């Protein structure tokens, strides 16, 4: 078994047992990045020198007997919309092509304090707007299973890098499925935490009431460990929840006995790819065989999640992205002379088409005369969706659902049709609107050999329960391991 097949916790143990040094681990992954990322394009920035230096520092801390996290010394990568001090944080946009923040995001501070070795910043859809990592200023990232296909998005770089064994784990962000959908496309695991569970301080905002940072790893056990490190109250984020700490101590007994799992039947209707449906329902059956109880019901209002999501996300984005005006940081156009020229030309040249489209859509739904019909309606729909989830969680502990209606599609296939692309978010966006957590894990392959993912959705701060079910599932399946086996013999 090669190092690249191991989970982050396995590597952490090897480091702790001195089977391998931090530097050796970092070096091995850097070699892999160098060998494969030229084509995969999952990184915007590779931190070779800095990574090795950091590895040595962590080694020193370990050698001095400092009590660090089980992830200490394990290499990792960070999505390029999470601020890293003095390291390019571009959000894969020309607009921030040279932006080096003078500070670290809270999640970065925490993961580094735990002994993480940061090997680089990963590619993404520009400002996290997209589901394919095709809108990046630095070019599309490829799916490790099939270079003709997208890795999903917007955390496509993070998911592809983990899927291809370039890092054991990575941080992503999820505004409408941006962790879960690329995990599903790349055959890896991820968690979209409860809103307020992880500080957003230092996460470049896309849609403030929906954004969350979360882990992407080879299995859900790694993800839970990463989440325990990066979560917790942060004074600098007013929406970070006080007085709550994740406790995964009961999550790894491998049992789902007595868990009530809901199946919203309307999630499995028209538009869902048959292979995906078969895999997810197959997983539901297995969970039942393992001792869980299944309940079927309908959540019709969730069918309206996509339009509500695009109204709210674009409205917030139009405001959040107004600060990019060519004055304080980032790209400034040389065209034109007036102040208005600086604003308009810098923004028109600095943003890609998808970002512009969403800014304009967001400006529209907030503009005078349309606010009530669109923005307010979107917020009311959001309230109904939240209510629908609350009602569902009175009946069951969690919901099992597909992550995406399809497996990875071809690069260029959907990019010209934004609406078609948006409809791909049908299963993920409702979770963000409701602010609740979801875990995404591999559950099979389609006819073309592409990974399929499922998600378990739970009530606010029920991550430990979701992890428990997902861990038990992964103990009884090897989809998450087959993924890596396949890549070795397959397209990589």
């Amino acid at each position, binding site marked *: 078994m090669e190092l690249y097949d191991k989970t982050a916790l396995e590597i952490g143990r090897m480091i702790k047992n001195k089977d391998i040094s931090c530097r050796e681990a970092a070096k091995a992954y850097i070699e892999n990045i160098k060998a494969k990322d030229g084509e995969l394009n999952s990184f915007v920035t590779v931190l070779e020198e800095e990574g090795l230096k950091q590895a040595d520092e962590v080694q020193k801390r370990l050698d001095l007997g400092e009590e660090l996290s089980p992830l200490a010394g394990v290499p990792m990568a960070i999505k390029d919309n999470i601020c890293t001090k003095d390291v390019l944080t571009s959000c894969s946009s020309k607009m921030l092509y040279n932006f*080096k923040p003078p500070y670290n995001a809270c999640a970065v501070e925490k993961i580094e304090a735990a002994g993480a070795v940061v090997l680089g910043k990963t590619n993404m859809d520009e400002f996290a707007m997209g589901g394919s990592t095709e809108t990046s200023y630095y070019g599309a990232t490829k799916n490790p299973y099939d270079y003709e296909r997208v890795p999903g998005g917007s955390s496509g770089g993070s998911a592809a890098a983990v899927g291809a064994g370039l890092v054991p784990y990575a941080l992503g962000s999820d505004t409408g499925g941006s962790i879960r959908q690329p995990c599903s496309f790349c055959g890896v695991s991820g968690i979209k935490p409860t809103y307020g569970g992880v500080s957003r301080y230092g996460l470049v905002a896309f849609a403030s009431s929906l954004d969350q940072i979360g882990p992407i790893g080879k299995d859900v056990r790694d993800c839970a460990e990463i989440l325990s490190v990066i979560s917790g109250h942060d004074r600098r984020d*007013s929406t970070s929840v006080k007085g709550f700490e994740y406790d995964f101590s009961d999550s790894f007994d491998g049992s789902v006995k007595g868990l009530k799992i809901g199946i919203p039947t309307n999630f499995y209707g028209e538009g869902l790819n048959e292979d995906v449906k078969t895999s997810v329902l197959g997983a539901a059956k297995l969970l039942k065989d393992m001792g869980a109880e299944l309940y079927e019901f309908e959540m019709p209002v969730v069918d309206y999640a996509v*339009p509500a999501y695009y109204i709210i996300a674009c409205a917030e984005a139009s405001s959040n992205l107004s600060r990019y005006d060519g004055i304080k940081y980032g790209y400034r156009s040389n065209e034109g002379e007036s102040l208005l020229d*600086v604003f308009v030309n810098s923004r028109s040249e600095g943003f890609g088409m998808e970002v*512009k489209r969403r800014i*304009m859509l967001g400006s529209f739904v907030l503009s005078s005369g349309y606010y009530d019909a*669109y923005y307010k309606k979107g917020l009311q729909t*959001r309230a*109904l969706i*939240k209510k629908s989830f609350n009602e569902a969680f009175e009946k069951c502990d969690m919901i099992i659902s597909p992550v995406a209606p399809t497996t990875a599609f071809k690069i260029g296939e959907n990019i010209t049709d934004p609406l078609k692309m948006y409809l791909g978010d049908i299963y993920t966006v409702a979770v963000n609107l409701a602010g609740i957590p979801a875990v995404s894990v591999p559950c099979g392959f389609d006819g073309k050999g592409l990974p399929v993912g499922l998600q378990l959705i739970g009530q606010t701060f029920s991550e430990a329960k979701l992890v428990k079910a997902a861990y038990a599932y992964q103990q009884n399946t090897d989809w998450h391991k087959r993924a890596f086996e396949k890549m070795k013999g397959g397209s990589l």
Partner: protein
Amino acid sequence: MILDIKLIEYLEELSRLKLSDEEKEKVKKDLSGILSYVDSLNELDTTDVEPMSHPFDFTNNFRKDEVKPSFDRELILKNAPKKKDGCFQVPKTVE
């Protein structure tokens, strides 16, 4: 909802963006399609539903009124495309 070019141009102005004629047409078509889909929300009865702008109901997260050191000015200006005399520099503002 079908958008006309005048509205697209108004949105350009609000967003401080300038599109080529071709892009305008494309955005008009895309946004019209998206908004027609969004209009399906009208099927939902939202009478008396309180709009939900936050995912949870928490209130009152305050900071104590205490001064902490500001940032080094060099760090604040570090990323500025144009600066002068410790300030960000922009073309003349007209009033």
